[in-house]
């Protein structure tokens, strides 16, 4: 914004290279290198220093569309292999969000069995749903590992041909964040050793705050690793057969997410029926209501992740269909 205001000094037809850089920041670098100068000239000529909000929004959406096109998520300007890869990587990113939601659910549902009435058969449905959820999560994790192993030879080739320099920054950031998570875990564990169970479970304010901060750091770390994985996967040359296998694994992962969302819904309904009190125990719970805020946010995150994964799979399927029809 600052450079844009400065650019207003020669509002009509002057040199707005720096201002243009600011206004076009949503566009990919390579696109700016090709079209940035002329679009900046057009903006200068049409609007001078005062770009209307509608046009500003148009540049944001235009920039994001170009990024989607270049990554292969939209349009057909990149090769089919890149479009399929983009779909699979969306699924991987969605899986990260799903894992975060899953961790939140795991924390929420701790010791749910104890809240259910004994000897009435009330355990059967929630236990089964929870087992399905856990088993599917394990299978999904194996699918992700299988995807990583399949890409490993191509990744090694990528490193041998000097690719490390292009992704080093991503990995360094992820490693630093991981080290901070490790240090935070050690500190929390040491502190928790001197606390009672009641103090650990929201009894001690500062412990809760530090735990929350650490949890956010875990989320950031998982996200940074995913960003590193996506940045690397976009640069690695995958043979056609491997790419096909990765696409199939992404579709299977999405299916696993569907099962897990279903199992979570069944568990929630069963707990609401037989142990409604358990759903009010979190800080976001309201007495007498099964709509615990923590659980609602967790499931919404699961659904958003599932939706994103479905978009990725749909992209893969559409590209495969185009290839087959050609």
């Amino acid at each position, binding site marked *: 914004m600052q450079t844009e205001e400065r650019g207003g000094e020669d509002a009509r037809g002057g040199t707005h290279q720096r201002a243009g850089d600011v206004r076009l920041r949503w566009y990919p670098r390579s696109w700016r290198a090709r079209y940035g*100068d*002329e*679009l900046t*000239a*057009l903006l200068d000529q049409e609007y001078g220093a005062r770009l209307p909000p509608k*046009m500003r929004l148009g*540049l944001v959406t*235009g920039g994001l569309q170009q990024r989607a096109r270049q990554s292969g998520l939209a*349009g057909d*300007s990149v090769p089919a292999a890149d479009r399929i890869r983009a779909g699979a990587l969306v699924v991987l990113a969605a899986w990260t969000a799903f894992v975060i939601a899953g961790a939140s659910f795991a924390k929420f549902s701790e010791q749910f069995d104890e809240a259910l009435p004994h000897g009435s058969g009330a355990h059967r449905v929630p236990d089964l749903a929870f087992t399905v959820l856990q088993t599917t999560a394990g299978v999904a994790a194996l699918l992700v590992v299988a995807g990583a192993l399949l890409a490993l030879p191509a990744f090694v080739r990528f490193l041998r041909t000097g690719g490390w320099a292009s992704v080093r920054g991503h990995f360094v950031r992820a490693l630093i964040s991981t080290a901070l998570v490790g240090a935070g875990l050690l500190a929390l564990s040491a502190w928790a050793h001197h606390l009672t169970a009641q103090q650990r479970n929201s009894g001690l304010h500062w412990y809760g705050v530090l735990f929350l901060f650490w949890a956010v750091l875990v989320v950031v770390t998982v996200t940074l690793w995913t960003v590193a994985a996506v940045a690397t996967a976009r640069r690695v040359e995958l043979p056609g057969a491997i790419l096909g296998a990765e696409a199939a694994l992404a579709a299977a992962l999405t299916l696993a997410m569907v099962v897990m969302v279903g199992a979570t819904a069944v568990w929630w309904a069963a707990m609401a029926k037989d142990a409604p009190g358990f759903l009010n125990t979190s800080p976001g719970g309201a007495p007498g209501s099964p709509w615990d805020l923590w659980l609602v946010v967790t499931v919404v995150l699961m659904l958003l992740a599932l939706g994103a994964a479905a978009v990725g799979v749909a992209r893969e399927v559409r590209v495969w269909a185009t290839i087959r029809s050609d």
Partner: protein
Amino acid sequence: MSLAGGAKHGHALLKDIEGFAGVRLGPGALYGAITRLEERGLIEPLESDDRRRPYQITSAGSQALADSVVQMRELVQVGQARLKSIRTATLRLA
């Protein structure tokens, strides 16, 4: 369609499109279209001394435009024929 009337840079394109279509495109939308058309080889940039790069339609672009015009003409003909039949039916009822 605008470039079928001669090579133009971004500003001239916006004015021309507004003139014949009554639509005021935003710069983001215009350059989205320019990017797609250039990628498909339907338009091409010309050399320019200043930052305002003009574009011209290619022969592939002319062919694509001709095909689109034929399609649009067929649509117009169908629309006109159906409107005519509505008018005839209305007159008969009256």
